[in-house]
């Protein structure tokens, strides 16, 4: 598995470059919004990748509660952290896109607002991980992840209804899609998904290593207490 990593990394880098080329050069300019619309090719795939990663965290959390396997918990943590990174990108590119198109920085756009809430929930998840002094932090964090995921349908419906009562701009929609746009979109979608999974995998291995070192250090101090030099 570990040997596959450099190859996958290079492949992903190639895909990302191809995606960049597609997004900036090949895809045609959109009629109403102009070139700014090209942010779409980065904005939506990032949101998708964040969703995939948070789904991995959700599944890992449940599996952890069932099996109590430390590596599964490491995966949950890794997926959550990388997910937050991709979420941040969605929340940064969104307003940058909204400003020239709608004249306002923020809009209660469905995707943007869902991402904001997801970001908040998972940042609180990461804070719990960092601030918890319990020996059973993974259990508590897993429960929080489940709560967060249960929340999402409710968030969706609340935003949906809010938007029907208070009409808001819709970002990134409308009009027939040129097949070249679709192509650029899917290339970036796959590229960013691979990239996200690869970074998650790296973070996972880092976490596993970190825990091993921690255990060894704890063992060290125990041994030194027993037989001081």
């Amino acid at each position, binding site marked *: 598995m570990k040997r596959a990593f450099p190859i996958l990394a290079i492949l992903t880098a190639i895909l990302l470059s191809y995606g960049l080329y597609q997004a900036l050069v090949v895809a045609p300019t959109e009629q109403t919004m102009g070139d700014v619309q090209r942010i779409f090719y980065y904005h939506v795939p990032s949101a998708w990748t964040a969703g995939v990663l948070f789904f991995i965290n959700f599944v890992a959390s449940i599996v952890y509660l069932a099996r109590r396997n430390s590596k599964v918990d490491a995966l949950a943590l890794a997926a959550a952290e990388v997910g937050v990174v991709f979420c941040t990108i969605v929340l940064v590119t969104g307003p940058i896109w909204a400003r020239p198109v709608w004249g306002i920085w923020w809009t209660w756009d469905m995707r943007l607002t869902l991402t904001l809430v997801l970001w908040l929930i998972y940042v*609180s998840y990461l804070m719990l991980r960092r*601030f918890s*002094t*319990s020996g059973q932090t993974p259990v508590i964090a897993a429960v929080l992840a489940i709560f967060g995921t249960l929340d999402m349908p409710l968030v969706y419906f*609340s935003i949906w209804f809010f938007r029907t009562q208070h009409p808001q701009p819709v970002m990134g929609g409308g009009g027939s899609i040129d097949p070249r746009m679709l192509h650029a979109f899917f290339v970036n979608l796959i590229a960013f998904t691979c990239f996200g999974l690869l970074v998650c995998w790296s973070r996972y291995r880092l976490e596993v290593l970190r825990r091993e070192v921690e255990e060894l250090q704890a063992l060290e101090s125990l041994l030194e207490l027993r037989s001081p030099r």
Partner: protein
Amino acid sequence: MSDAGSLTRSTLIKDLRLEWRSKDAINSMLFFALLVVVIFSFSFDPTAEESRRIAGGLIWVAFLFAAVVALNQTWARELRNQVLDAYRVSPAPANSLFLAKALGNFIFVSMLEALMTPLFIAFYNLRALGPAYQLIFVAVLGTWALVVNGTFFAAMSLRTRSREIMLPLLLFPITIPALLAMVEATSSILTGEFSAKFWIVLLAAYDVVFTIASLFLFDLVLHAE
């Protein structure tokens, strides 16, 4: 089943009695609630028509702050007296403890709300243009939404550094749909512009989902401390 019910009831009655005896906590929270109302009303012009539009949001933010103050000390007494360890080794279902705590918090926060509401009506010169009776549903369902998750997250935050700030940090993001529903429902009823029915149904759904989730998962959290 009746064992669990009677355990819940006895825990609840014990809690209420203890709270009533130590009136300090109640008094300080009441005063805090009053302060919140007053300070929030500085941003307000009671004669303006837009007041009714914003009032819903301000009221629920005020209730939220008051609720967090109450929730933060949910488990304080149990921690002080190592009661939680006793619960962990006893065969009593963890649910009963949770339900008793949540109900106690619900009663207490409702009391705070009942006291803050007339003040709000006075300061903001409120008068509902829509069906005012629906506000009761919003208040009950909304308060339970805050309290059920708040009690649960208070237990989750027990072993954390900066416990007091951890509770709102965890609670606020997850309560966003409920808060949106409470605020929008209240605004709809006050301005009379829209029907609050969808929001009330959403609040009910939220309450069902998270009450079940909390009852299911509290055992895990209790033993994780």
